């Protein structure tokens, strides 16, 4: 197995609020290999965004609390043991993240050029490198690098785009800018949280293709999060299915379509509209468990068609069905 760039072990996260305790993550284990694109799929509230935010260290820490025993190893280093400054240093150039809503995620009062060169500059300062061999000023170099990135993400007329403000661009263009800002810092790991949810289907496909090629070119590892398996399938090598704060299945993309093992994954797949099929869209009956109570037993048991008595009592362990396919279910 190639070098794992990210290893998450027993990640447990709670949110403390006035209404009580909210168990967002309940023992997540996953590995991400270098250069791999991993999809994380699940319904709203399953904890996938919290997973990404914990990795990059941007959880709002008063309400959020990571439970002792959790480990997030990035290139062998436990991120949860780092202090604020050290973590800050990793962000951007080590681990980058792009978010769901590009309009609110971009600063409205600064131009695209300003925000992009900021990313370029941070990368340049950290790597202590000069971008070119000519005698141009740093500012000029940043500007050129920004323009070249905008070209790479397919933005028409990059020079004038630099002067524009976020609200002057379309959703698709804004997301391209976000991607360019993230990749300009040449991160080893990029986290993408529902990057295409706010885009129309055609633009979605374009953005995903673009991201896939750029990321492959850069040799970065990617964790792409979505509630939509179809989106993830377009660019991921492997996918991890999450439910109520735990990972329930972990398999490469082709395998998860051909041989979904966990009842939840099977239900998810049957919800997807099949091309040319006349089958009615089915919904999974019931709703996700309230995360107020500490988890006990298999979280999917209440909705599971195959549930047995033991499911409610014991939490199923992740079993290796094959070297690349794991599932947490008592059926196996």
């Amino acid at each position, binding site marked *: 197995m190639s070098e794992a760039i990210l290893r998450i072990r027993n990640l447990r996260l709670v949110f403390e609020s006035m209404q009580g305790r909210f168990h967002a993550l309940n023992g997540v284990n996953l590995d991400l290999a270098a250069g791999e694109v991993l999809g994380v799929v699940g319904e709203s509230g399953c904890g996938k965004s919290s997973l990404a935010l914990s990795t990059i260290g941007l959880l709002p820490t008063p309400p959020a609390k990571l439970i002792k025993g959790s480990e997030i190893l990035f290139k062998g280093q436990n991120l949860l043991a780092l202090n604020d400054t050290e973590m800050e240093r990793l962000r951007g150039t080590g681990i980058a993240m792009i*978010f769901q809503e590009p309009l609110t*995620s*971009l600063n409205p*009062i600064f131009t695209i050029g300003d925000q992009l060169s900021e990313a370029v500059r941070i990368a340049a300062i*950290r790597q202590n490198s000069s971008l070119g061999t000519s005698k141009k000023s740093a500012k000029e170099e940043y500007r050129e690098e920004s323009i070249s990135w905008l070209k790479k993400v397919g933005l028409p007329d990059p020079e004038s785009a630099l002067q524009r403000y976020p609200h002057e661009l379309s959703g698709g263009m804004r997301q391209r800018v976000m991607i360019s800002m993230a990749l300009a810092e040449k991160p080893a790991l990029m986290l993408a949280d529902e990057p295409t949810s706010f885009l129309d289907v055609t633009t979605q496909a374009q953005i995903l293709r673009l991201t896939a090629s750029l990321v492959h070119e850069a040799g970065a590892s990617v964790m792409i999060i979505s509630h939509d398996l179809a989106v993830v399938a377009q660019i991921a090598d492997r996918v991890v299915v999450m439910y109520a704060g735990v990972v329930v299945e972990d398999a490469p993309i082709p395998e998860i379509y051909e041989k979904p093992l966990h009842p939840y994954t099977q239900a998810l797949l049957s919800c997807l509209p099949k091309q040319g099929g006349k089958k009615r869209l089915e919904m999974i009956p019931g709703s996700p468990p309230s995360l107020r109570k500490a988890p006990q037993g298999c979280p999917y048991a209440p909705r599971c068609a195959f549930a047995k008595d033991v499911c409610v009592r014991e939490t199923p362990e992740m079993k290796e069905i094959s070297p690349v396919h794991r599932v947490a279910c008592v059926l196996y």
Partner: protein
Amino acid sequence: MVVNESHKGLIIFIAKRVALLALVLLGVSVITFTVSRVAVPDPTRAWAGPRASQSTIDALIAKFHLHEPIYVQFYYYVVGILHGDWGSDPSTGQPVLESILLYLPATIELTTAALLVVIAVGIPLGVAAATHRNKLQDHVSRVTALTGVASPPFVVALLLQLVFFYYLHVFPDSGGRISPLIQAPARVTGFLILDSILAGNLVALTSALQHIIMPAIALGFLNLGLMSRLVRASMLDSLASDYVRTAKAKGVTKLVVTYKHAFRNALIQPVTVLSVYVAYMLGGSVVIESIFDWPGLGYFAAQSIFNFDLPAVMGVTLIFAIGVVVVNLAADILYAILDPRIRLG
């Protein structure tokens, strides 16, 4: 530099606003007209004085076209104002506009100084209250805001005078804008501080600065706390925003995130509110200038009120309204400059 859509939008925005200004001023004059001619039981007495002779009164009736329909009167009223005829003091005959122009610079100077106090103290206090939520800085900000809003301006002014002039002997020897023992510099702009600088007169400058501090603090205190609360709320919103999260994700340092990304956005709303504070301050200046013997419009207004001099009071009201409208326009323009999203609408 490329003149993009956004810049063009800004210019159009400003042009539209300036055109609107004329309309608002017209509305303002309707009100001043109503108060000064219509609401008053006996306008000629009010404008001529109680001891005026019948011929004076007849002349006034002719001049104000008092026997003609209201809209005709209004027309002549507006014409008169535009020509600089704002009436005259019933007892002294001094034209009101002249007095107003005499006292105006002092008020502008004081109001500007008070605004500076609000900005220089209110904004940092607000930022501190946001970054140190529910700690001392936050409590100080809250208490200052409450007392500022609830204080009658004369209490603040008198207290300041008592403590600093009288007990601590910290500040200057007298009221007014400058020590009576010092030769004031030649009146170029009417702004004593500027004139002192222009004349290179350091002694006068020092005295002028010493004299402006207390009334500026008194005037600014009313709004200081409010400003800090506004900045605090704005900062908290900003710090919790998505774009701040993105900046952090990029690896931007905490300091830069707070002061470049959050602060600049947070500043937009409070800054535009400053024009509202100017309106409060103009009201407060009537009391505060009197207590500090500051010879500005507020002082003039207080004297005129005391004498029931309606033309003078109306004149001050009009100029204050014009001031507020102009300052509001400036605030709108500032808003458009600070926030590019506004320009395109």
